Protein backbone atom coordinates (compact mmCIF):
# COMPACT_ATOMS: atom_id res chain seq x y z
CA UNK A 1 0.00 0.00 0.00
CA UNK A 2 1.17 3.52 -0.74
CA UNK A 3 1.95 5.97 2.03
CA UNK A 4 -1.15 7.85 3.07
CA UNK A 5 -1.37 11.51 2.04
CA UNK A 6 -3.70 12.35 4.91
CA UNK A 7 -3.87 10.82 8.37
CA UNK A 8 -6.54 11.63 10.89
CA UNK A 9 -5.64 10.39 14.35
CA UNK A 10 -7.98 10.22 17.34
CA UNK A 11 -9.90 13.25 16.21
CA UNK A 12 -12.44 14.66 18.64
CA UNK A 13 -14.59 17.73 18.50
CA UNK A 14 -16.99 19.09 21.06
CA UNK A 15 -19.06 22.21 20.51
CA UNK A 16 -20.80 23.72 23.52
CA UNK A 17 -20.46 20.50 25.47
CA UNK A 18 -21.83 18.39 22.62
CA UNK A 19 -19.48 15.64 21.46
CA UNK A 20 -19.81 15.91 17.69
CA UNK A 21 -16.82 13.93 16.42
CA UNK A 22 -15.78 10.91 18.42
CA UNK A 23 -12.27 9.52 18.19
CA UNK A 24 -12.08 9.43 14.43
CA UNK A 25 -9.18 7.59 12.77
CA UNK A 26 -8.93 7.64 9.01
CA UNK A 27 -6.26 7.72 6.30
CA UNK A 28 -6.44 8.65 2.67
CA UNK A 29 -4.21 7.32 -0.11
CA UNK A 30 -3.03 8.76 -3.44
CA UNK A 31 -5.11 7.78 -6.45
CA UNK A 32 -7.95 6.55 -4.30
CA UNK A 33 -11.45 7.98 -4.20
CA UNK A 34 -13.10 7.62 -0.83
CA UNK A 35 -16.78 8.12 -0.21
CA UNK A 36 -17.43 9.70 3.18
CA UNK A 37 -20.95 8.61 3.84
CA UNK A 38 -23.29 9.37 6.66
CA UNK A 39 -26.76 10.65 7.34
CA UNK A 40 -27.37 14.37 7.72
CA UNK A 41 -25.88 15.64 10.95
CA UNK A 42 -23.45 12.72 11.24
CA UNK A 43 -20.45 15.05 11.33
CA UNK A 44 -19.11 14.94 7.77
CA UNK A 45 -18.91 18.68 7.31
CA UNK A 46 -17.46 19.17 10.78
CA UNK A 47 -14.70 16.64 10.01
CA UNK A 48 -13.99 18.38 6.72
CA UNK A 49 -13.85 21.79 8.42
CA UNK A 50 -11.19 20.42 10.74
CA UNK A 51 -9.25 18.90 7.84
CA UNK A 52 -9.11 22.31 6.20
CA UNK A 53 -8.32 24.47 9.21
CA UNK A 54 -11.70 26.16 9.46
CA UNK A 55 -12.34 24.51 12.82
CA UNK A 56 -9.91 23.40 15.46
CA UNK A 57 -10.08 19.86 16.92
CA UNK A 58 -10.76 19.53 20.63
CA UNK A 59 -8.16 16.77 20.60
CA UNK A 60 -6.42 14.57 18.08
CA UNK A 61 -4.27 15.30 15.10
CA UNK A 62 -4.52 15.79 11.36
CA UNK A 63 -1.43 15.27 9.23
CA UNK A 64 -1.48 16.20 5.57
CA UNK A 65 1.49 15.40 3.34
CA UNK A 66 3.62 14.95 6.46
CA UNK A 67 2.74 18.32 8.00
CA UNK A 68 0.67 18.75 11.13
CA UNK A 69 -2.38 20.89 10.52
CA UNK A 70 -2.02 22.48 13.92
CA UNK A 71 1.64 23.45 13.85
CA UNK A 72 2.34 23.92 10.14
CA UNK A 73 -0.96 25.03 8.72
CA UNK A 74 0.38 26.66 5.55
CA UNK A 75 2.46 23.61 4.59
CA UNK A 76 -0.32 21.19 5.44
CA UNK A 77 -3.05 23.00 3.49
CA UNK A 78 -0.81 23.80 0.51
CA UNK A 79 -1.72 20.62 -1.36
CA UNK A 80 -5.40 20.56 -0.45
CA UNK A 81 -8.22 21.65 -2.70
CA UNK A 82 -11.62 21.86 -1.14
CA UNK A 83 -15.27 22.72 -1.58
CA UNK A 84 -17.02 22.95 1.79
CA UNK A 85 -20.77 22.66 1.34
CA UNK A 86 -21.75 25.08 -1.45
CA UNK A 87 -18.93 26.88 -3.24
CA UNK A 88 -19.44 30.54 -2.31
CA UNK A 89 -17.69 32.78 -4.79
CA UNK A 90 -17.54 36.57 -4.94
CA UNK A 91 -20.76 37.20 -6.84
CA UNK A 92 -19.86 40.75 -7.78
CA UNK A 93 -16.80 39.63 -9.73
CA UNK A 94 -16.46 37.50 -12.85
CA UNK A 95 -15.59 33.83 -12.57
CA UNK A 96 -12.19 34.63 -14.01
CA UNK A 97 -11.48 37.35 -11.45
CA UNK A 98 -12.49 34.91 -8.72
CA UNK A 99 -9.97 32.39 -9.99
CA UNK A 100 -7.27 35.07 -10.27
CA UNK A 101 -8.05 36.06 -6.70
CA UNK A 102 -7.54 32.54 -5.38
CA UNK A 103 -4.54 31.98 -7.65
CA UNK A 104 -2.78 34.87 -5.91
CA UNK A 105 -3.05 32.95 -2.67
CA UNK A 106 -1.05 29.99 -4.00
CA UNK A 107 2.49 29.73 -5.26
CA UNK A 108 3.04 29.25 -8.97
CA UNK A 109 -0.46 29.27 -10.45
CA UNK A 110 0.10 30.79 -13.88
CA UNK A 111 -2.32 32.45 -16.24
CA UNK A 112 -2.00 29.39 -18.48
CA UNK A 113 -3.05 27.15 -15.60
CA UNK A 114 -6.15 29.29 -14.98
CA UNK A 115 -7.10 29.08 -18.66
CA UNK A 116 -6.49 25.34 -18.66
CA UNK A 117 -8.70 24.65 -15.66
CA UNK A 118 -11.44 26.90 -17.08
CA UNK A 119 -11.42 24.76 -20.23
CA UNK A 120 -11.41 21.53 -18.24
CA UNK A 121 -14.52 22.44 -16.29
CA UNK A 122 -16.16 23.75 -19.46
CA UNK A 123 -16.73 27.34 -18.43
CA UNK A 124 -14.75 29.11 -21.14
CA UNK A 125 -17.80 30.78 -22.67
CA UNK A 126 -19.07 32.38 -19.49
CA UNK A 127 -15.96 32.83 -17.39
CA UNK A 128 -15.81 36.61 -17.86
CA UNK A 129 -19.37 37.14 -16.71
CA UNK A 130 -20.23 38.01 -13.15
CA UNK A 131 -20.78 35.00 -10.89
CA UNK A 132 -24.21 36.30 -9.86
CA UNK A 133 -25.46 35.44 -13.37
CA UNK A 134 -24.33 31.79 -13.04
CA UNK A 135 -26.63 28.83 -12.59
CA UNK A 136 -26.07 26.43 -9.70
CA UNK A 137 -24.38 23.97 -12.04
CA UNK A 138 -21.99 26.63 -13.30
CA UNK A 139 -21.18 27.65 -9.74
CA UNK A 140 -20.34 24.03 -8.97
CA UNK A 141 -18.01 23.96 -11.95
CA UNK A 142 -16.36 27.18 -10.85
CA UNK A 143 -16.09 25.69 -7.36
CA UNK A 144 -14.30 22.68 -8.79
CA UNK A 145 -12.02 24.98 -10.80
CA UNK A 146 -10.94 26.92 -7.70
CA UNK A 147 -10.35 23.67 -5.81
CA UNK A 148 -8.15 22.22 -8.58
CA UNK A 149 -6.38 25.43 -9.56
CA UNK A 150 -3.15 24.68 -7.70
CA UNK A 151 -2.96 20.97 -8.65
CA UNK A 152 -3.76 19.66 -5.17
CA UNK A 153 -2.71 16.19 -4.05
CA UNK A 154 -5.79 15.91 -1.88
CA UNK A 155 -9.22 17.00 -3.04
CA UNK A 156 -12.09 17.33 -0.60
CA UNK A 157 -15.62 17.63 -1.91
CA UNK A 158 -18.46 18.09 0.55
CA UNK A 159 -21.79 17.01 -0.95
CA UNK A 160 -20.66 18.02 -4.45
CA UNK A 161 -23.62 16.59 -6.31
CA UNK A 162 -26.07 18.99 -4.68
CA UNK A 163 -27.77 20.87 -7.44
CA UNK A 164 -26.26 18.94 -10.34
CA UNK A 165 -28.54 17.32 -12.90
CA UNK A 166 -28.03 13.61 -13.78
CA UNK A 167 -26.00 14.46 -16.88
CA UNK A 168 -23.87 16.79 -14.79
CA UNK A 169 -23.31 14.09 -12.19
CA UNK A 170 -22.25 11.58 -14.84
CA UNK A 171 -19.77 14.04 -16.34
CA UNK A 172 -18.52 14.92 -12.88
CA UNK A 173 -17.87 11.25 -12.02
CA UNK A 174 -15.96 10.74 -15.22
CA UNK A 175 -13.85 13.80 -14.62
CA UNK A 176 -12.98 12.89 -11.03
CA UNK A 177 -12.05 9.32 -12.01
CA UNK A 178 -9.78 10.75 -14.66
CA UNK A 179 -7.92 13.18 -12.42
CA UNK A 180 -7.59 10.60 -9.64
CA UNK A 181 -5.95 8.16 -12.03
CA UNK A 182 -3.91 10.54 -14.16
CA UNK A 183 -2.63 12.78 -11.41
CA UNK A 184 -2.65 10.29 -8.53
CA UNK A 185 -4.83 12.61 -6.48
CA UNK A 186 -6.53 11.36 -3.35
CA UNK A 187 -10.17 12.38 -3.36
CA UNK A 188 -12.73 12.35 -0.58
CA UNK A 189 -16.36 12.89 -1.46
CA UNK A 190 -18.87 13.28 1.32
CA UNK A 191 -22.50 12.50 0.75
CA UNK A 192 -25.58 11.50 2.65
CA UNK A 193 -26.74 9.53 -0.37
CA UNK A 194 -24.60 6.55 -1.19
CA UNK A 195 -26.45 5.97 -4.45
CA UNK A 196 -25.07 9.16 -5.97
CA UNK A 197 -21.45 8.29 -5.48
CA UNK A 198 -21.17 4.51 -5.14
CA UNK A 199 -20.24 4.14 -8.80
CA UNK A 200 -17.24 6.40 -8.55
CA UNK A 201 -15.64 5.56 -5.20
CA UNK A 202 -12.99 2.92 -4.48
CA UNK A 203 -13.92 2.62 -0.85
CA UNK A 204 -16.37 4.02 1.59
CA UNK A 205 -16.03 5.30 5.13
CA UNK A 206 -19.31 5.40 6.97
CA UNK A 207 -19.84 7.87 9.78
CA UNK A 208 -22.79 8.04 12.08
CA UNK A 209 -23.29 10.17 15.17
CA UNK A 210 -19.70 11.35 14.85
CA UNK A 211 -18.32 7.81 14.93
CA UNK A 212 -16.69 5.94 12.11
CA UNK A 213 -18.69 2.72 11.91
CA UNK A 214 -17.22 1.07 8.83
CA UNK A 215 -14.49 1.41 6.22
CA UNK A 216 -14.54 -0.95 3.27
CA UNK A 217 -12.93 -1.27 -0.11
CA UNK A 218 -15.28 -1.89 -2.99
CA UNK A 219 -14.31 -4.63 -5.41
CA UNK A 220 -16.82 -4.50 -8.18
CA UNK A 221 -15.52 -7.74 -9.79
CA UNK A 222 -16.40 -10.09 -6.91
CA UNK A 223 -20.03 -10.34 -7.78
CA UNK A 224 -21.40 -13.71 -6.82
CA UNK A 225 -25.07 -13.40 -7.73
CA UNK A 226 -26.64 -13.60 -11.15
CA UNK A 227 -30.15 -13.03 -12.39
CA UNK A 228 -31.36 -15.57 -14.93
CA UNK A 229 -34.57 -15.82 -16.90
CA UNK A 230 -35.42 -19.02 -18.77
CA UNK A 231 -38.42 -20.63 -20.44
CA UNK A 232 -38.16 -24.04 -18.72
CA UNK A 233 -37.84 -23.40 -15.00
CA UNK A 234 -37.99 -27.04 -13.91
CA UNK A 235 -34.96 -27.97 -16.04
CA UNK A 236 -33.10 -25.00 -14.58
CA UNK A 237 -33.85 -26.20 -11.05
CA UNK A 238 -32.52 -29.64 -11.95
CA UNK A 239 -29.29 -28.27 -13.40
CA UNK A 240 -28.39 -25.94 -10.59
CA UNK A 241 -29.28 -28.53 -7.99
CA UNK A 242 -28.33 -27.62 -4.46
CA UNK A 243 -27.36 -23.96 -5.05
CA UNK A 244 -29.31 -21.32 -3.14
CA UNK A 245 -31.84 -19.80 -5.48
CA UNK A 246 -34.69 -17.40 -5.04
CA UNK A 247 -37.41 -16.30 -7.44
CA UNK A 248 -37.09 -12.69 -8.56
CA UNK A 249 -39.46 -10.97 -10.99
CA UNK A 250 -39.83 -13.31 -14.00
CA UNK A 251 -36.72 -15.34 -13.21
CA UNK A 252 -34.39 -16.28 -10.38
CA UNK A 253 -31.40 -14.98 -8.52
CA UNK A 254 -28.80 -17.66 -8.01
CA UNK A 255 -25.58 -17.66 -6.03
CA UNK A 256 -22.84 -18.53 -8.46
CA UNK A 257 -19.23 -17.42 -8.91
CA UNK A 258 -18.18 -15.79 -12.16
CA UNK A 259 -15.91 -18.67 -13.39
CA UNK A 260 -18.80 -21.12 -13.11
CA UNK A 261 -21.11 -19.12 -15.37
CA UNK A 262 -19.89 -20.53 -18.75
CA UNK A 263 -20.33 -24.11 -17.52
CA UNK A 264 -23.86 -23.33 -16.41
CA UNK A 265 -24.71 -21.84 -19.81
CA UNK A 266 -23.28 -24.89 -21.63
CA UNK A 267 -25.36 -27.20 -19.45
CA UNK A 268 -28.53 -25.21 -20.14
CA UNK A 269 -27.75 -25.32 -23.84
CA UNK A 270 -27.29 -29.10 -23.81
CA UNK A 271 -30.62 -29.55 -22.03
CA UNK A 272 -32.32 -27.31 -24.61
CA UNK A 273 -33.31 -24.72 -22.05
CA UNK A 274 -34.15 -21.36 -23.71
CA UNK A 275 -32.27 -18.57 -21.95
CA UNK A 276 -33.82 -15.08 -22.33
CA UNK A 277 -31.49 -13.25 -20.08
CA UNK A 278 -28.59 -13.64 -17.65
CA UNK A 279 -26.74 -10.83 -15.91
CA UNK A 280 -24.76 -10.14 -12.73
CA UNK A 281 -26.58 -8.65 -9.77
CA UNK A 282 -24.66 -6.14 -7.72
CA UNK A 283 -25.52 -6.37 -4.18
CA UNK A 284 -26.68 -2.82 -3.78
CA UNK A 285 -24.50 -0.88 -1.37
CA UNK A 286 -27.34 1.44 -0.73
CA UNK A 287 -29.30 -1.38 0.88
CA UNK A 288 -26.36 -2.29 3.09
CA UNK A 289 -25.86 1.31 4.02
CA UNK A 290 -29.44 1.78 5.05
CA UNK A 291 -29.29 -1.46 6.99
CA UNK A 292 -26.18 -0.28 8.84
CA UNK A 293 -27.35 3.19 9.67
CA UNK A 294 -30.82 2.24 10.70
CA UNK A 295 -32.96 2.75 7.61
CA UNK A 296 -35.67 5.32 7.74
CA UNK A 297 -34.30 6.98 10.83
CA UNK A 298 -31.23 8.27 9.04
CA UNK A 299 -32.22 11.89 9.09
CA UNK A 300 -33.11 12.02 12.74
CA UNK A 301 -30.12 10.67 14.60
CA UNK A 302 -28.47 12.63 17.39
Amino acid at each position, binding site marked *: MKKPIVEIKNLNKSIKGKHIIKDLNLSFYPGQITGFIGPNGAGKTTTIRMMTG*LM*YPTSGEIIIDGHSMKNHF*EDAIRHVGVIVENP*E*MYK*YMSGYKNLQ*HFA*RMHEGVTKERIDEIVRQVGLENRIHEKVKTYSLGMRQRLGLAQALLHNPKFLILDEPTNGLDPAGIREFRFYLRKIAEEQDISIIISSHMLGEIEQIVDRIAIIQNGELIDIRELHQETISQYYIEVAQTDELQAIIGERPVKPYEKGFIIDIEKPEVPALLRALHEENVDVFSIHPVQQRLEDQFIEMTGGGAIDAIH
Partner: protein
Amino acid sequence: MRYIKNEWIKLWSQKTAWMLTIFLCLLVVGVGAVTKYYEKPLTTPEDRRNANQAELDNYQSLVNDPAIPEEELSFYREEILKLEYRIANDLLPASEMGFDTFMDMGLQMSLALGAMFMIVIAASILSKEFSTGTIKMLLTRPVARWKILLSKLVTVFIFGGFVIFIGAVLTAILGFLFWGSDTVGSLTIVNGAVVQENMTDSYMNLILYSIPSIILNTLLSFMLGAIFGSSTLAVGIALLIAFLSNTILYFIAKYEFAKYLWFANDIRQFMPGSTPVIEDLTLGFSMIVCIVYAIVFVVVTFLHFQKRDVTA
Protein backbone atom coordinates in the same frame (compact mmCIF):
# COMPACT_ATOMS: atom_id res chain seq x y z
CA MET B 1 1.33 42.26 -0.87
CA ARG B 2 -0.64 39.98 -3.18
CA TYR B 3 -3.25 39.62 -0.48
CA ILE B 4 -3.61 43.40 -0.19
CA LYS B 5 -4.03 43.52 -3.96
CA ASN B 6 -6.82 40.94 -3.64
CA GLU B 7 -8.59 43.00 -1.00
CA TRP B 8 -8.14 46.18 -3.02
CA ILE B 9 -9.68 44.57 -6.11
CA LYS B 10 -12.61 43.18 -4.13
CA LEU B 11 -13.18 46.54 -2.48
CA TRP B 12 -13.46 48.37 -5.80
CA SER B 13 -15.51 45.60 -7.40
CA GLN B 14 -18.31 46.46 -4.98
CA LYS B 15 -20.52 49.50 -5.16
CA THR B 16 -19.90 50.84 -1.65
CA ALA B 17 -16.36 52.09 -2.20
CA TRP B 18 -17.38 53.90 -5.40
CA MET B 19 -20.46 55.42 -3.85
CA LEU B 20 -18.57 56.77 -0.86
CA THR B 21 -15.80 58.25 -2.98
CA ILE B 22 -18.22 59.83 -5.43
CA PHE B 23 -20.27 61.21 -2.54
CA LEU B 24 -17.22 63.00 -1.13
CA CYS B 25 -16.30 64.41 -4.55
CA LEU B 26 -19.84 65.68 -5.14
CA LEU B 27 -19.90 67.30 -1.73
CA VAL B 28 -16.61 69.13 -2.30
CA VAL B 29 -17.70 70.29 -5.75
CA GLY B 30 -21.14 71.25 -4.44
CA VAL B 31 -19.88 73.30 -1.51
CA GLY B 32 -17.28 75.02 -3.70
CA ALA B 33 -19.74 75.82 -6.46
CA VAL B 34 -22.42 77.12 -4.10
CA THR B 35 -19.96 79.34 -2.23
CA LYS B 36 -18.55 80.67 -5.47
CA TYR B 37 -22.02 81.29 -6.90
CA TYR B 38 -23.31 83.36 -3.97
CA GLU B 39 -20.21 85.38 -3.29
CA LYS B 40 -19.83 89.02 -4.39
CA PRO B 41 -16.41 88.81 -5.99
CA LEU B 42 -13.73 91.19 -4.78
CA THR B 43 -11.57 90.85 -7.82
CA THR B 44 -9.59 94.11 -7.93
CA PRO B 45 -7.17 95.44 -5.31
CA GLU B 46 -9.52 98.43 -4.82
CA ASP B 47 -12.48 96.15 -4.00
CA ARG B 48 -10.40 94.36 -1.42
CA ARG B 49 -9.00 97.55 0.06
CA ASN B 50 -12.46 99.10 0.33
CA ALA B 51 -13.91 96.02 2.02
CA ASN B 52 -11.07 95.88 4.53
CA GLN B 53 -11.22 99.67 5.02
CA ALA B 54 -14.93 99.54 5.81
CA GLU B 55 -14.29 97.03 8.55
CA LEU B 56 -11.32 99.00 9.80
CA ASP B 57 -13.48 102.17 10.09
CA ASN B 58 -16.03 100.17 12.02
CA TYR B 59 -13.41 99.04 14.57
CA GLN B 60 -11.91 102.54 14.73
CA SER B 61 -15.24 104.00 15.77
CA LEU B 62 -15.65 101.25 18.40
CA VAL B 63 -12.23 101.97 19.87
CA ASN B 64 -13.08 105.66 20.09
CA ASP B 65 -16.40 104.92 21.77
CA PRO B 66 -15.96 105.67 25.51
CA ALA B 67 -18.76 103.19 26.43
CA ILE B 68 -16.69 100.16 25.39
CA PRO B 69 -15.15 98.40 28.42
CA GLU B 70 -11.38 98.29 28.66
CA GLU B 71 -10.97 94.50 28.31
CA GLU B 72 -12.68 94.48 24.89
CA LEU B 73 -10.50 97.28 23.61
CA SER B 74 -7.37 95.16 23.31
CA PHE B 75 -9.27 92.72 21.09
CA TYR B 76 -10.40 95.56 18.79
CA ARG B 77 -6.92 97.00 18.66
CA GLU B 78 -5.57 93.62 17.52
CA GLU B 79 -8.24 93.41 14.83
CA ILE B 80 -7.25 96.88 13.64
CA LEU B 81 -3.63 95.81 13.41
CA LYS B 82 -4.65 92.76 11.37
CA LEU B 83 -6.83 94.81 9.02
CA GLU B 84 -4.01 97.25 8.42
CA TYR B 85 -1.84 94.25 7.58
CA ARG B 86 -4.52 93.00 5.16
CA ILE B 87 -4.67 96.35 3.39
CA ALA B 88 -0.90 96.57 3.17
CA ASN B 89 -0.60 93.04 1.73
CA ASP B 90 -3.71 93.09 -0.50
CA LEU B 91 -5.37 90.19 1.37
CA LEU B 92 -9.09 89.35 1.27
CA PRO B 93 -11.21 90.27 4.30
CA ALA B 94 -11.37 87.44 6.88
CA SER B 95 -15.06 86.81 6.16
CA GLU B 96 -14.43 86.04 2.47
CA MET B 97 -13.61 82.68 0.88
CA GLY B 98 -10.21 82.42 -0.75
CA PHE B 99 -8.04 79.62 -1.99
CA ASP B 100 -6.58 78.97 1.44
CA THR B 101 -9.85 79.04 3.40
CA PHE B 102 -11.52 76.79 0.85
CA MET B 103 -8.56 74.42 1.06
CA ASP B 104 -8.92 74.34 4.83
CA MET B 105 -12.63 73.65 4.60
CA GLY B 106 -12.19 70.94 1.95
CA LEU B 107 -9.51 69.24 4.02
CA GLN B 108 -11.71 69.23 7.10
CA MET B 109 -14.56 67.75 5.06
CA SER B 110 -12.33 65.11 3.50
CA LEU B 111 -10.90 64.13 6.86
CA ALA B 112 -14.31 63.91 8.54
CA LEU B 113 -15.92 61.94 5.73
CA GLY B 114 -12.80 59.84 5.14
CA ALA B 115 -12.86 58.86 8.82
CA MET B 116 -16.51 57.90 8.52
CA PHE B 117 -15.94 55.87 5.36
CA MET B 118 -13.08 54.02 7.01
CA ILE B 119 -15.40 53.04 9.84
CA VAL B 120 -17.92 51.72 7.32
CA ILE B 121 -15.37 49.75 5.30
CA ALA B 122 -13.50 48.47 8.37
CA ALA B 123 -16.72 47.04 9.78
CA SER B 124 -17.76 45.29 6.57
CA ILE B 125 -14.51 44.15 4.96
CA LEU B 126 -14.32 41.04 7.15
CA SER B 127 -17.91 40.50 8.28
CA LYS B 128 -19.13 40.49 4.68
CA GLU B 129 -16.93 37.47 3.95
CA PHE B 130 -18.70 35.71 6.79
CA SER B 131 -22.22 36.66 5.79
CA THR B 132 -21.67 35.56 2.17
CA GLY B 133 -19.79 32.41 3.15
CA THR B 134 -16.73 33.34 1.08
CA ILE B 135 -14.61 33.29 4.23
CA LYS B 136 -14.27 29.51 3.96
CA MET B 137 -12.81 29.83 0.45
CA LEU B 138 -10.37 32.43 1.77
CA LEU B 139 -9.18 30.57 4.87
CA THR B 140 -8.59 27.20 3.17
CA ARG B 141 -5.53 28.59 1.37
CA PRO B 142 -1.89 28.32 2.38
CA VAL B 143 -2.10 31.74 4.00
CA ALA B 144 -2.18 32.08 7.78
CA ARG B 145 -5.26 33.78 9.19
CA TRP B 146 -3.36 36.72 10.62
CA LYS B 147 -1.97 37.54 7.19
CA ILE B 148 -5.45 37.70 5.73
CA LEU B 149 -6.65 39.87 8.58
CA LEU B 150 -3.66 42.19 8.31
CA SER B 151 -4.13 42.57 4.56
CA LYS B 152 -7.72 43.63 5.17
CA LEU B 153 -6.76 46.15 7.82
CA VAL B 154 -4.01 47.62 5.64
CA THR B 155 -6.48 47.86 2.76
CA VAL B 156 -8.87 49.89 4.92
CA PHE B 157 -6.10 52.36 5.72
CA ILE B 158 -5.00 52.61 2.11
CA PHE B 159 -8.62 53.22 1.14
CA GLY B 160 -8.96 55.97 3.76
CA GLY B 161 -5.72 57.63 2.71
CA PHE B 162 -6.78 57.41 -0.90
CA VAL B 163 -10.22 58.94 -0.32
CA ILE B 164 -8.81 61.80 1.77
CA PHE B 165 -6.13 62.39 -0.86
CA ILE B 166 -8.75 62.52 -3.64
CA GLY B 167 -10.82 64.98 -1.59
CA ALA B 168 -7.79 67.19 -0.92
CA VAL B 169 -6.63 67.20 -4.53
CA LEU B 170 -10.13 67.96 -5.79
CA THR B 171 -10.39 70.80 -3.27
CA ALA B 172 -7.06 72.23 -4.41
CA ILE B 173 -8.08 72.10 -8.07
CA LEU B 174 -11.47 73.72 -7.43
CA GLY B 175 -9.94 76.31 -5.10
CA PHE B 176 -7.46 77.25 -7.77
CA LEU B 177 -10.14 77.43 -10.49
CA PHE B 178 -12.54 79.51 -8.40
CA TRP B 179 -10.24 81.72 -6.39
CA GLY B 180 -6.87 81.51 -8.11
CA SER B 181 -4.23 83.02 -5.90
CA ASP B 182 -6.63 85.10 -3.77
CA THR B 183 -5.86 84.29 -0.18
CA VAL B 184 -7.49 85.28 3.06
CA GLY B 185 -4.57 84.38 5.23
CA SER B 186 -4.73 83.43 8.85
CA LEU B 187 -3.25 86.19 11.01
CA THR B 188 -2.09 86.09 14.61
CA ILE B 189 -0.46 88.71 16.81
CA VAL B 190 2.85 87.68 18.31
CA ASN B 191 4.51 90.21 20.64
CA GLY B 192 2.52 93.06 19.17
CA ALA B 193 3.43 92.24 15.57
CA VAL B 194 1.14 90.66 12.96
CA VAL B 195 2.32 87.26 11.73
CA GLN B 196 0.77 85.43 8.80
CA GLU B 197 0.55 81.70 9.41
CA ASN B 198 2.21 79.43 6.91
CA MET B 199 -0.74 77.68 5.24
CA THR B 200 1.13 74.47 4.43
CA ASP B 201 2.03 74.13 8.11
CA SER B 202 -1.56 74.59 9.17
CA TYR B 203 -2.78 71.96 6.66
CA MET B 204 -0.15 69.55 7.90
CA ASN B 205 -1.18 70.25 11.50
CA LEU B 206 -4.81 69.61 10.67
CA ILE B 207 -3.96 66.26 9.08
CA LEU B 208 -1.47 65.14 11.72
CA TYR B 209 -3.67 65.98 14.70
CA SER B 210 -6.66 64.22 13.07
CA ILE B 211 -4.86 60.96 12.33
CA PRO B 212 -4.92 59.36 15.82
CA SER B 213 -8.69 59.49 16.18
CA ILE B 214 -9.16 58.24 12.62
CA ILE B 215 -6.91 55.27 13.34
CA LEU B 216 -8.60 54.48 16.65
CA ASN B 217 -12.12 54.66 15.25
CA THR B 218 -11.10 52.43 12.36
CA LEU B 219 -9.50 49.85 14.65
CA LEU B 220 -12.56 49.88 16.90
CA SER B 221 -14.90 49.33 13.98
CA PHE B 222 -12.65 46.58 12.58
CA MET B 223 -12.66 44.85 15.96
CA LEU B 224 -16.43 45.07 16.34
CA GLY B 225 -16.93 43.77 12.79
CA ALA B 226 -14.65 40.81 13.49
CA ILE B 227 -16.33 39.96 16.78
CA PHE B 228 -19.98 40.45 15.88
CA GLY B 229 -19.65 39.17 12.33
CA SER B 230 -22.24 41.80 11.46
CA SER B 231 -21.25 45.00 9.75
CA THR B 232 -24.46 46.81 10.65
CA LEU B 233 -23.92 46.47 14.37
CA ALA B 234 -20.23 47.38 14.11
CA VAL B 235 -20.85 50.42 11.90
CA GLY B 236 -23.66 51.54 14.17
CA ILE B 237 -21.67 51.41 17.37
CA ALA B 238 -18.47 52.84 15.89
CA LEU B 239 -20.26 55.74 14.17
CA LEU B 240 -22.28 56.46 17.27
CA ILE B 241 -19.15 56.74 19.36
CA ALA B 242 -17.42 58.83 16.69
CA PHE B 243 -20.30 61.29 16.44
CA LEU B 244 -21.51 61.42 20.01
CA SER B 245 -18.13 61.33 21.73
CA ASN B 246 -18.32 65.04 22.58
CA THR B 247 -21.85 64.76 23.93
CA ILE B 248 -20.95 61.70 25.98
CA LEU B 249 -17.86 63.47 27.26
CA TYR B 250 -19.89 66.47 28.30
CA PHE B 251 -21.82 64.26 30.70
CA ILE B 252 -19.00 62.14 32.04
CA ALA B 253 -16.15 64.66 32.06
CA LYS B 254 -16.55 65.18 35.78
CA TYR B 255 -15.66 61.57 36.58
CA GLU B 256 -12.06 60.52 37.02
CA PHE B 257 -12.32 57.52 34.64
CA ALA B 258 -13.37 59.72 31.72
CA LYS B 259 -9.82 60.72 30.95
CA TYR B 260 -8.87 57.08 30.43
CA LEU B 261 -11.39 56.67 27.61
CA TRP B 262 -9.92 56.78 24.14
CA PHE B 263 -12.41 59.27 22.75
CA ALA B 264 -11.65 61.71 25.55
CA ASN B 265 -8.08 61.78 24.28
CA ASP B 266 -8.74 62.96 20.75
CA ILE B 267 -5.43 64.55 19.78
CA ARG B 268 -7.24 67.27 17.81
CA GLN B 269 -7.95 69.10 21.07
CA PHE B 270 -4.22 69.87 21.33
CA MET B 271 -4.09 71.68 18.00
CA PRO B 272 -2.77 75.23 18.24
CA GLY B 273 -5.71 77.40 19.25
CA SER B 274 -7.82 74.62 20.85
CA THR B 275 -8.34 73.75 24.51
CA PRO B 276 -8.81 70.19 25.85
CA VAL B 277 -12.28 69.14 27.00
CA ILE B 278 -10.93 67.71 30.24
CA GLU B 279 -8.60 70.39 31.54
CA ASP B 280 -5.74 68.40 33.03
CA LEU B 281 -5.12 66.32 29.90
CA THR B 282 -1.72 66.70 28.29
CA LEU B 283 -0.62 65.77 24.79
CA GLY B 284 1.78 63.15 26.13
CA PHE B 285 -0.84 61.49 28.32
CA SER B 286 -3.39 61.41 25.51
CA MET B 287 -0.88 59.94 23.08
CA ILE B 288 -0.15 57.12 25.50
CA VAL B 289 -3.85 56.42 26.05
CA CYS B 290 -4.42 56.31 22.28
CA ILE B 291 -1.51 53.95 21.72
CA VAL B 292 -2.65 51.62 24.52
CA TYR B 293 -6.18 51.46 23.10
CA ALA B 294 -4.85 50.89 19.58
CA ILE B 295 -2.82 47.94 20.81
CA VAL B 296 -5.76 46.53 22.77
CA PHE B 297 -8.11 46.77 19.77
CA VAL B 298 -5.61 45.13 17.43
CA VAL B 299 -4.68 42.33 19.84
CA VAL B 300 -8.31 41.50 20.64
CA THR B 301 -9.20 41.44 16.93
CA PHE B 302 -6.31 39.21 15.91
CA LEU B 303 -6.61 36.80 18.84
CA HIS B 304 -10.33 36.40 18.35
CA PHE B 305 -10.01 35.81 14.62
CA GLN B 306 -7.10 33.40 15.03
CA LYS B 307 -8.94 31.23 17.55
CA ARG B 308 -12.47 31.12 16.27
CA ASP B 309 -14.12 28.18 14.52
CA VAL B 310 -15.43 29.17 11.11
CA THR B 311 -18.85 27.70 10.44
CA ALA B 312 -20.02 30.12 7.75
